[in-house]
């Protein structure tokens, strides 16, 4: 599943981004699952606030990283879409 630029993603109750001090990395905790979060995914999830739409998240990352907007959009919409399909992110 690919998210749309107009989707407004949010982390619902029961999904938590946490810094795991024992393993020294970020994890996304969800029902019966824990996803290891790399620096890029953590940067995306930090912008998921239930207010911005996916287009605004892509814009913010494009301003921050030296990469073409369309490349960032492809990655972000696929990642958020995947987490929507797994019912981790809501829209």
């Amino acid at each position, binding site marked *: 599943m690919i998210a749309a630029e107009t989707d407004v993603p949010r982390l619902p109750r029961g999904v938590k981004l946490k810094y795991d001090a*024992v393993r020294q990395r970020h994890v996304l905790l969800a029902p019966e699952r824990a996803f290891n979060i790399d620096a890029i995914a953590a940067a995306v999830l930090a912008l998921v606030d239930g207010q911005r739409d996916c287009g605004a998240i892509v814009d913010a990352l494009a301003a921050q990283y030296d990469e073409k907007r369309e490349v960032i959009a492809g990655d972000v919409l696929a990642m958020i879409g995947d987490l929507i399909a797994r019912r981790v992110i809501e829209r």
Partner: protein
Amino acid sequence: MSAPARAPQAADLVGHPIGLLAELTHRCPLRCPYCSNPLELERRDAELDTATWKRVLSEAAALGVLHIHLSGGEPTARPDLVELTAHCAREGLYSNLITSGIGRAGTMIDALYDAGLDHVQLSVQGATVDTADRIGGYKGGHVAKLAFARRVVELGLPLTLNAVIHRGNIHEVEEIIALAVALKAKRLEVAHTQYYGWAYVNRAALMPERAEVDRSIALVEEARRRLEGVLVIDMVIPDYYARYPKPCTGGWGRKTLNVTPTGKVLPCHASESIPGLEFWTVREHGLADIWRHNPAFNAYRGTDWMPEPCRSCERRELDFGGCRCQAMALLGDAAATDPACSRSPFHARMEALATAEAGGVAPDYIYRTIGGAPAPQPAETLS
């Protein structure tokens, strides 16, 4: 001191556990004949107290545990469940309530929400009142569960339905999927029965036929495609008919641990069925000490303990030789290759056993009751 070079031993393989199953109590209003609790159920006066459980939860967080599964029996039978849930939240632990949804669950759920509960896993025994209440051995149970599920969703808590599947409800798999959608669950576990403890003594009453299993798997696969983004369906395949064994608990002493109502710490809920292993208790040891040093945790850790055909198998770190308890139950040897594996010399006999039981007349259930364990069965070995 000089020591010869040696192969890595189990103690070198100790990582950090990710999940802890807290069996707070064995008390439960339901009497499911496949209950994962042991046949010898603990009574209330033997249970750990609140302060000890809080210490164990804090030690779990320090050890790297991420998810706490608050389970039982029925965990809401303990009045301190709200306090323990709040303690999980304070320690940054993800709390998962594994509940029947009946008894005190309905009156406690709002307080659990306020205490910071993260997720609810609700058992269902079937999709219809008659089927579900007969299997659970509790009249009115199914209707109470539906009301509980609605309240969970109304509060905004994520809901998973867990349905243990066997010959008494396998014809309702399609309706169970529809029920999960109607209740607005996010996840559904279609968990074919695993034959330990109560399920082992009831196996002939529970084992479905191969054709029914195949049909249920096809239904789930079709529903997964149809319901993408609506319902996530996880499936546990019945391993008597499987090609490869399940990687029980992700490898012995590798990812998870289980604390019993009296404080014994186990690699999995069934591991007390293996004779000769001594399990340390949280009354006498810290959790990290047990995880690292209890010989029972190191007994089957890693791959050094493995016999052939596991030892040289390319899947040895995918399924870790399968389930030690199943090897014990069916072969009388906990270190043998799980006969669920098609590479075990005993696999064909295991499948034949399942086929014979599934094709026979189903005996009555031996319902789970405290103090009601059946007399030990004669050792039934395939070997």
